[in-house]
């Protein structure tokens, strides 16, 4: 089991999420637990809480999980998913305020170095202007 922080990618588009996950894998291989999801419960563009919960489960690490999102609904649904987690896990999952592709790659690279959740988040968020 990896002791590194896990990364979750939540996009409105399954293609964007999958493609971003591919780029993360290319950078860090299997060193970082990774989950991704995209699309609404009806299969269209959007995000859905159940899929986000499953992606968090897939990327779960005792060190915590950093979530990268694209547009507003992905953030709101991710925050909702975090609140629905068991209490013991809730405080160990964060949504990063960062561009989804660059943020995921940077966060995963940081995570692969064994950095704690705070540092992983900070690295991703350095990409956000202003």
């Amino acid at each position, binding site marked *: 089991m990896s002791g590194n922080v896990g990364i979750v990618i939540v996009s409105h588009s399954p293609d964007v999420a999958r493609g971003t996950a591919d780029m993360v894998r290319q950078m860090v291989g299997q060193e970082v637990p990774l989950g991704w999801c995209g699309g609404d419960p009806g299969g269209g*563009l959007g995000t*859905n809480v159940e899929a986000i919960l499953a992606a968090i489960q897939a990327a779960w690490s005792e060190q915590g999980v950093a979530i990268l999102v694209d547009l507003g*609904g992905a953030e709101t649904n991710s925050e909702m998913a975090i609140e629905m987690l068991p209490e013991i896990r809730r405080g160990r999952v964060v949504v990063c305020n960062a561009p989804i592709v660059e943020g995921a790659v940077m966060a995963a690279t940081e995570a692969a170095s064994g950095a704690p959740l705070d540092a992983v988040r900070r690295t991703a968020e350095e990409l956000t202007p202003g």
Partner: protein
Amino acid sequence: MIVDSDTTKLLIETVARRVMASAQELTELDRAIGDGDHGINMERGFEAVLAQVDQLAAQGLANALIGVGTTLVLKVGGASGPLYGTLFMALGKAWPAEATREQVTEALARALEAVKARGKSDLGQKTMLDVLGPVLAVVREGGQDLPSRLRTTAAAAASATVPMKAIRGRASFLGERSIGHMDPGARSSALLVEAVADVMEGRF
């Protein structure tokens, strides 16, 4: 006031059917300033609610509201899922067993605060809050003709989002160009309020 299970069922059905019947209109509003999925998302959510209306109604209004919220969170997709989900869940959690108007006002106020926190938003930003805020004020006032005043207030408040500039949500990407369109979330909130007012008046 105690809301019995028949009235609970009627409330859920009326609200769900009203939203579903307006899916096309909501989608068109959202196409103008958002991503054009509000109608279909809300329709999917309330279809799922309607499918379990008997189980929901049997749990009493407070738990039914929580159940409606949970279903919306899981089925709607898009930001309106967690926003409406939070509204119903928070309302259910705060709903008193024997509700006086003061207690209902308090529960509604808490639900609004929960939606504000979830959406990191406030009144005046061209969102559902711009309908729910004025509606809360009318509930707080109480008095005569409450249902018809609720209906009028909700419709006027939704119309009042037309000249607003969006600050939150997808429409905020459009900046000035969001001006001149009704906010889809404000419209769907008005539909919910109208449906509740209809049940209160026995018109459904």
